[in-house]
């Protein structure tokens, strides 16, 4: 009897979580409005959308399954090179490239998941880092295919659906990236608010207990790891397609490290953290680098130290307060 009551309770709470909060609607409306509000900043907006998707991918494993990673760039790079090579040698269709980039990254995620999923946080950090380093060197040494340190040149993308050409202003690029981000976000949102997502959170909070209550821990973790890899692959594919260029830098350590910073700024475990973090990180970087091209790294570093020491609660508190201002829609029903 109590079993059915509990099930009812869980179903209800999941359904409630799936409902759209007004703040979420406001966020996406703002994202859509950015298209009209900043007509000269499409290029950086495009980079933000891609970084946000990449951060979303890390949030899926870090925020929901508790898997730390210092080598998430491995999947970004895999997606970027897959999409780039497909465009160069097979077909220039962007959507095919996107699907291909996601598929290869997911496969890579699946193959490396047995390595990553055993052991503690520290071993995970080391293994993910190692995988990314290995891929970096593989891409470097396969110079005949990837162009090595000179980068993959000569990618030209066909128009999306045969009509929307990638223009120099980045209009199509941003719209494309934003739409992909939105669709993948919807899917992620549905997944984390499903029984599967709930079981992941159970694993994150207490792996032993989750296993004892019948959750197939290794399979669930492998599944979310592969999904997260596919998301990172999508970010890589977008990067390759919108810049029509891939360099070894996509595998570089700083990509993974920046990603951690983005999630630290935005906060992990509620999906929006990566998006907000990406916006804050990119605008900050852009503003400071415009102000002082030589010493911007110093200011970014200083800001991050201060932020982590004290400011983090301030921003997260402000976001929570803002969200709380909106009355919970249908809270009484």
């Amino acid at each position, binding site marked *: 009897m109590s079993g059915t009551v509990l099930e009812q309770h869980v179903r209800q709470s999941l359904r409630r979580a799936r409902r759209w909060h007004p703040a979420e609607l406001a966020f996406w409306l703002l994202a859509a409005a950015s298209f009209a509000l900043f007509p000269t900043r499409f290029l950086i907006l495009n980079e933000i959308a891609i970084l946000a998707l990449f951060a979303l991918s890390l949030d899926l494993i870090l925020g929901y399954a508790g898997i730390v990673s210092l080598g998430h760039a491995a999947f970004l790079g895999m997606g970027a090179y897959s999409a780039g090579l497909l465009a160069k040698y097979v077909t220039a269709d962007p959507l095919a490239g996107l699907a291909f980039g996601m598929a290869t990254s997911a496969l890579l995620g699946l193959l490396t998941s047995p390595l990553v999923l055993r052991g503690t946080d520290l071993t995970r950090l080391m293994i993910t880092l190692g995988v990314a380093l290995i891929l970096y060197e593989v891409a470097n040494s396969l110079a005949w295919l990837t162009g090595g*340190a000179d980068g993959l040149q000569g990618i030209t993308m066909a128009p999306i659906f045969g009509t929307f050409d990638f223009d120099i202003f980045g209009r199509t690029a941003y719209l494309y990236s934003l739409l992909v981000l939105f669709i993948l976000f919807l899917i992620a949102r549905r997944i984390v608010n499903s029984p599967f997502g709930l079981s992941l959170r159970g694993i994150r909070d207490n792996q032993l207990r989750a296993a004892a209550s019948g959750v197939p821990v290794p399979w669930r973790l492998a599944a979310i790891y592969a999904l997260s890899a596919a998301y990172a692959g999508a970010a890589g594919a977008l990067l390759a397609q919108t810049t029509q260029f891939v360099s070894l830098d996509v595998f570089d350590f700083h990509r993974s490290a920046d990603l951690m910073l983005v999630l630290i700024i935005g906060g992990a475990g509620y999906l929006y953290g990566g998006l907000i973090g990406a916006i804050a990180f990119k605008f900050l970087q852009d503003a400071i680098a415009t102000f*002082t091209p030589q010493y911007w790294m110093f200011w970014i570093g200083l800001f991050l130290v201060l932020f982590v020491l004290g400011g983090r609660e301030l921003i997260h508190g402000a976001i929570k307060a803002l969200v709380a201002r909106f009355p919970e829609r249908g809270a009484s029903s």
Partner: protein
Amino acid sequence: MTFRRTVLKGFMAGALAVTLGCAAQAQEVVKVGLILPMTGPFASTGRQIEAAVKLFLAQSGATHGGKRLEVILKDDTGNADATRRIAQELVVNDKVAVLAGFGLTPLAMATAPIATQAKIPQIVMAAATASITEASPFIVRTSFTLPQASEPMADWAWSNGIKRVFTVVTDYGPGIDAETSFANKFKAAGGTVESVRVPLRNPDFAPFLQRVSEAKPDALFVFVPSGIGAQFMKQFVERGLDKAGVKLIGPGDVVDDDILNGMGDVAIGAITTHHYSAKHDSAANQAFVKAFEAANPGVRPNFMAVGGYDGMRLIAEALKATNGDASGEKLIAAMKGASWESPRGPITIDPATRDIIQNIYVRRTEKVGSDLFNIEFATIPQVKDPVKARK
């Protein structure tokens, strides 16, 4: 960032003009987007070029062809997708008339499609792979090409009794250019060549130098990007290659003037072929070095600086020639065939390839007083890029 001094000057000049009432309309500005690696492993390239560009504007003023040149400096951290994005932003948002800088080959290559699409001149002040100028009809180069500097080395080595050479180059465009152009020429003369390539990022030369020391060649031909030479020299000594009697030869990048003094006496006796030495014996160069060192105490201009200096001069001269018309096609047309006496010697922009024609000098690294310098002792006049010349 805008150069404050330039802005200030322009502002003051503008204010003066208004006060005097002799100019009804404000002077038109031509913007130059300068994209350089100002941070990261190749920051020395960026600093040298930025200093040289500033120096040129300070010396010749910002007004050319009736327009005021305004430089917008951006840092790409030596990262090709950043270079491309910044170039695109400069074109779209800042409406620059010229893109300049480009510290490494991948950075220049990634930007080439933007230059073509926007029909904007792209002045390559540093990157030195031969094929760069073929990537876009809007690319003009004021640095040099690796084959241009490396082929004369093969001639010199063969005629000076060197028969077996081991090459160690950085594994990217310019390194491969240097290796193939040297090896082909040297083998054609009858010599034997063995080759290894070192990764671009985080290079560790020790295992490669070990192979060199086992092979015991007559000479070691080396190319590393500007700024990495000191690291190479240190490991060259650690492996005892200096005592084993292996002669050090190559294009001049390894004995880069900027860091030559820090290398110590191991560099003495290295024979290199290159287009610029801070000790180049001419009045123009002496004035350039003196002014550069006065503006940047403790920094000696290297071949990157002279590439930046001439690049800025090329933009100014082209603007003068078009009477201030800053449209891309007009500027490129004016740049083709431009010729003057640079601190490095006489230079010409080849009208056919938009690449630079210049003297290549054979130099020996020597101690002058307490400082190390590359002393030129032979000149190969007016060398074109051999790769494109053969086509």
